[in-house]
């Protein structure tokens, strides 16, 4: 054991503990005598020798003995039409961020083994994305909760339901202190149930929690008067697509369908007919969408909104009517550098000729006001302020539960 050494007048240390506590001296990495470790009368070297010999014998001799006994455990009651060992395919949906992706799941003897896209589902057309592929791993995740938990400890579903029953049934008040956290599944039944809960417990709070929730998009649309919705784009009719920090071909929630639609307009035959689409990407980071774009501008994330404001003002100047309140979005006075202005000019010029055949998509990570700026507003009439006609909004007419964040609709 050496005391903390001193070199060039500076105390030297080997670990954080010896630095904070220099008087302890340096601590040995391995305990004294580790090289001669002896357990149950067998030294480390002897142990390795025995292990080596038994491994060699096990490997060399098992080939000479009879095969292991194998068992067959058939069903006691076999499901109808099940042929053991044959794969069966089930059609299902995966919800990510309120968008349903149609899937076909291959199942082998009751164990799902592979996820593929459902050709007959419009959101998939036979394709999947990383989220869908990962669901198989998710299913067999050892950390996946298999039962209800109570204060971190394992419980049963029956117990959990009984506890909820006890807490809610006979509750005469309006549900003060009751909060429900739920994912953002775009299910009408879900929504109806939540609405009935909200009716019974008026003071209850219902929150959606979802990693891919489109909260900014919804909030932005609410700014221009469209409540409880998110846009659903149809790129098959779009001649010009403007992506404002939207990776709609990569990590976007509806990427499978949008990529297919976008690619459908990228055929060489379409180019001959003058119908090939054009994509502008204004984004702060490299994305699949940016790599595909005809024209890509890399700007800081904060500048994407500035670009949207520039574009809106150019379009307004060319005679497009903005929805009420749109001009106030973005706050302070507009300041933009030369590149942004030049780009906004060019994009606005392109869009002006494509009224009704262009889409502006804003990425979820942009703030709500950018989304509001890009949306055409509540009108369903042909008079549209921004050329994002191809975006159609579906609003939920049913009243959202009070105190509830707007639930997305599909």
């Amino acid at each position, binding site marked *: 054991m050496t005391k903390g050494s001193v070199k060039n007048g500076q105390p030297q240390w080997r670990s954080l503990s010896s630095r904070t506590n220099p008087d302890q001296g340096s601590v040995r990495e391995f305990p004294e005598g580790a090289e001669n470790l002896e357990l149950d009368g067998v030294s480390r070297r002897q142990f390795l020798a025995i292990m080596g010999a038994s491994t060699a014998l096990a490997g060399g001799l098992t080939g000479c003995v009879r095969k292991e006994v194998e*068992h067959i455990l*058939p*069903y*006691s009651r*076999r499901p109808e039409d099940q042929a*053991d060992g044959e794969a069966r395919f089930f059609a299902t949906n995966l919800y990510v961020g309120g968008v349903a992706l149609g899937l076909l799941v291959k199942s082998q003897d009751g164990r799902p083994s592979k996820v593929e896209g459902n050709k007959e589902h419009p959101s998939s057309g036979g394709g999947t994305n990383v989220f869908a592929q990962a669901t198989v791993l998710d299913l067999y995740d050892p950390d996946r909760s298999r039962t209800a938990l109570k204060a971190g400890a394992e419980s049963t579903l029956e117990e959990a339901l009984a506890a909820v029953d006890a807490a809610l049934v006979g509750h005469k008040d309006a549900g003060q202190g009751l909060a429900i956290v739920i994912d953002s599944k775009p299910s009408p039944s879900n929504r109806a149930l939540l609405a009935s809960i909200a009716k019974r417990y008026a003071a209850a709070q219902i929150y959606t929690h979802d990693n891919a929730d489109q909260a900014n998009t919804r909030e932005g649309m609410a700014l221009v008067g469209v409540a409880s919705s998110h846009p659903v784009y149809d790129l098959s009719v779009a001649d010009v697509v403007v992506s404002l920090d939207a990776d709609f071909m990569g990590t976007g929630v509806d990427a499978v369908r949008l990529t297919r639609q976008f690619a459908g307009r990228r055929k060489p035959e379409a180019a001959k007919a003058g119908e090939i689409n054009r994509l502008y990407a204004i984004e702060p980071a490299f994305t699949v969408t940016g790599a595909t774009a005809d024209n890509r501008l890399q700007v800081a994330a904060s500048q994407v909104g500035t670009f949207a404001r520039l574009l809106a003002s150019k379009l307004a100047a060319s005679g497009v009517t903005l929805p009420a309140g749109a001009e106030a979005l973005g706050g302070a006075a507009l300041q933009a550098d030369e590149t942004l202005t030049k780009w906004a000019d060019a994009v606005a010029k392109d869009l002006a000729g494509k009224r009704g055949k262009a889409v502006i998509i804003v990425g979820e990570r942009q703030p709500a006001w950018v989304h509001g700026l890009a949306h055409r507003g509540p009108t369903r009439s042909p008079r549209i302020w921004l050329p994002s006609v191809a975006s159609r909004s579906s609003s939920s007419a049913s009243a959202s539960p009070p105190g509830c964040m707007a639930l997305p609709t599909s």
Partner: protein
Amino acid sequence: MAQIFPRWSNRLPLAIAAVVPLLVASLGGALWYWGSPKFTDVGYRPEQPVPFSHKLHAGEMGMDCRYCHNTVEKAAMAAVPPTSTCMNCHANVLPESAKLARIRESAKNDVPVKWVRVHMLPDYAYFNHSVHLSAGVGCSSCHGRIDQMPVVAQAKPLSMGWCLECHRAPEANLRPASEITNMAWDSTTANYRADEDPKRLRKVKDLHPPEHCSGCHR
């Protein structure tokens, strides 16, 4: 100076030349005989948890193979029947038999019966029952006279060489579709020419049983 090696050591190379090939040959011969699936696998007859007799059911009572192994014509695996198939009859036939206690227990508690696999094809060899049936290979060609076995035993070696023998010249093992489950079918006395059968769904010349590695090791 004394000799290091005694005189008899002159004969040592001759002795080695004579003995070593003999040893090698006998070792090879022993492996060839006792290591072959014909010796190690044929006759494997494990005890089953329920003393089900194929001799009684398939032989004496004449039940069709496909009543229990019902997926054999459409799937790779000829499924071992679920307990509910047994109970179709045994709910009424011998409902109190002690031999059937495991079956009743399985049906009542919805737990599987742990049968012992007799025909153990390795996992690296692919086999499809339905393809062989549709080609006209009968059950007994590979499984032997199951209808005469009180306890099922492996009748054929199921080795690669044995598979290939038939894949190279399948004609002798083909039979008409109507005789697929006929245990008593004998190709030597049946006088059946598969290539001249007009009712065959798959012509013999179109069968192409794979002889390349990836046909089965895929």
